[in-house]
């Protein structure tokens, strides 16, 4: 048995994840329905107000979420559980979370550092997280991408991008 074969722990986590998904869908429906009361109905005579569709969607979420909860508990969808269990066994959460954090950092640095520097920094970091071991190559690609995109977009295509620290230099 290799370490990647699904174990009971994986199957338990798959079930937990699916039930959590069902509960999230139900509570999202609840949130939508509480928000509906805050939607103003607008002035004047309107046959169908702005609340109807949000209400339908909110109720839909609750009903579908409850049905999905049934499929993960009493009327268990075994195929789905087996599928998710296999994936659970091969999932590396740490990489996923690191990738997401690097993205958030990238977006927050776009304005203060400028597009070019933020991209030059993000590319090797993301490459590393996604499994690259050639740091020097990635740094070069990152720099090249940052400069090329910035120059092409601002000079040729007329799309605004922040210059950040390099204001006046680029």
């Amino acid at each position, binding site marked *: 048995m290799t370490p990647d074969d699904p174990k009971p722990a994986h199957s338990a986590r798959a079930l937990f994840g699916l039930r959590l998904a069902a509960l999230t869908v139900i509570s999202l429906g609840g949130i939508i329905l509480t928000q509906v009361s805050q939607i*103003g109905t607008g002035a004047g005579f309107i046959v169908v107000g702005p609340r109807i569709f949000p209400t339908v969607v909110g109720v839909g979420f609750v009903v*579908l979420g409850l049905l*999905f909860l049934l499929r993960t508990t009493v009327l268990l969808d075994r195929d789905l559980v087996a599928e998710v269990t296999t994936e659970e066994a091969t999932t590396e959460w740490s990489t996923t979370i690191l990738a997401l954090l690097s993205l958030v950092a990238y977006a927050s640095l776009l304005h203060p550092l400028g597009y070019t520097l933020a991209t030059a920094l993000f590319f090797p970091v993301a490459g590393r997280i996604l499994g690259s071991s050639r740091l020097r190559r990635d740094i070069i*690609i990152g720099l090249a991408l940052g400069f090329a995109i910035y120059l092409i977009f601002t000079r040729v295509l007329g799309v605004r991008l922040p210059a950040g620290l390099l204001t006046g230099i680029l």
Partner: protein
Amino acid sequence: MDVLTNLLHGFASALTPQYLLLAALGVTLGTAIGVLPGIGPALTVALLLPLTYNFDPTGALIMFAGIYYGGMYGGSTTSILLNTPGESASVATTFEGFAMAKSGRGGAALATAAVGSFVAGTISTLLLTFVAPVVARLALLFQPADYFSLTVLAFMSVTALVGKSLLRGMISLFIGLFIGLIGIDVLTGQPRLTFGMTELLDGIDVVVVAVGLFAVGEALYVASQMRHTKEEILPVNTSVWMNRDEWRRSWPAWLRGTLLGFPFGALPAGGAEIPTFLSYTTEKRLSKNKEEWGHGAIEGVAGPEAANNAAFSGVLVPLLTLGLPTSATAAILLVAFQIYNLQPGPLLFQKSPELIWALIASLYIGNVMLLVLNLPLIRIWIKILAIPRSVLYAGILVFGTLGVYSLSNSFVDVMIMYAIGVLGFIMRRYGFPVGPTILGVILLPMAEAQFRRALSISQGDPSVFFTRPLSLGLLVAAAGALLLPYIPVLIARLRRKPVDAGRVVFGEGQED
């Protein structure tokens, strides 16, 4: 001969050097990006959208048509050599295509895909040329109630026919409807579901949703499965061409694929997914060499690839004539139209005929260019496949962020896009199809506006949806789409036979 005159005018403007260049650029860029594993035509168009902000509308749309064709063709190369479909519509190609490449016949598989795409593209553009003006005239008869029922049909057919579970498809659709509702209500000016965030007042752009679900969601998924994906690129040692026998076997498959692809693309049922799978099963059933299937039967590549290309022209019918996008790519194309303040629909044919016909003419031209470019350049495209996954996905994240950031230089937009990316990742992890979500986001505004308009006209009488024959017919078709997958089970039950398969499934529902 109204159509022919218009078409000739279209050719006259599409054949100017500037537009020819844009078409060539579009086809080349589209192929280059489409070849990248995991990137389908929808994402290709979304990522390249900022490139065209400075062009005139005709030029931009011509380029997009080229990008789309190129993206589709590039995707088939990836499916055949890497067994990684960039979108659900090329899943059917991987079965026999990858098998052919493994047995050393990758060259023939690539050739039948390229020539088949050309044949299907040309025939289906011809069909589009003659069908679209007729539908545009019919579309003038559509009233709000009919439009609403049409969106219901689109929702139901995509949700019910695609993906493994109707329930998960419906949840996915409702997620899309929810995202579509966020923002100011157009009719009353009331903010809805914005949770007090002023950035959400304008709603969430389709590009933000598409890039989030497809680019970021996919990259996070790849990150999560990183240790377990093995890359295997199959070399192409033979020439990229077919022998006489392969030609003989490809022809009928191309034609049947085209005939399946165009009408299914034109129906509001989600584009190329269903016809490619139908083509695959049809070819398998008709084949005289059944023992070859699974080991590389050329019909299994020729048919689905032709269907895939033909479906694109089909999808353009409802998009151009009714303003109804039925696939993710069509939705992004609609965004491209809207950037230039053009609203596709019956009136577009009357208001901007020169644009429509230049676009249709450029489809013919793009097709020829694709064939001329792709067969000789195929070895360069194959080199792109060798880009390591880490570099590739880091690059996709850079371009995805760029695509959204360049819309309005907004940090919040980018954050929303990442959040939708996380949503896409979770959906993929737990087996929810993302196709219905995109469709929900795109079609919700139209569905709601037409629903409310219909009821205003009827002064609140909901029977208007059932008394107009057209609307009733569309709603009946929607109900039929919901029931269709269960019919084989019902028949089996009635005959008291053991039920082996649950419901019939068309495709995986991972359109991207």
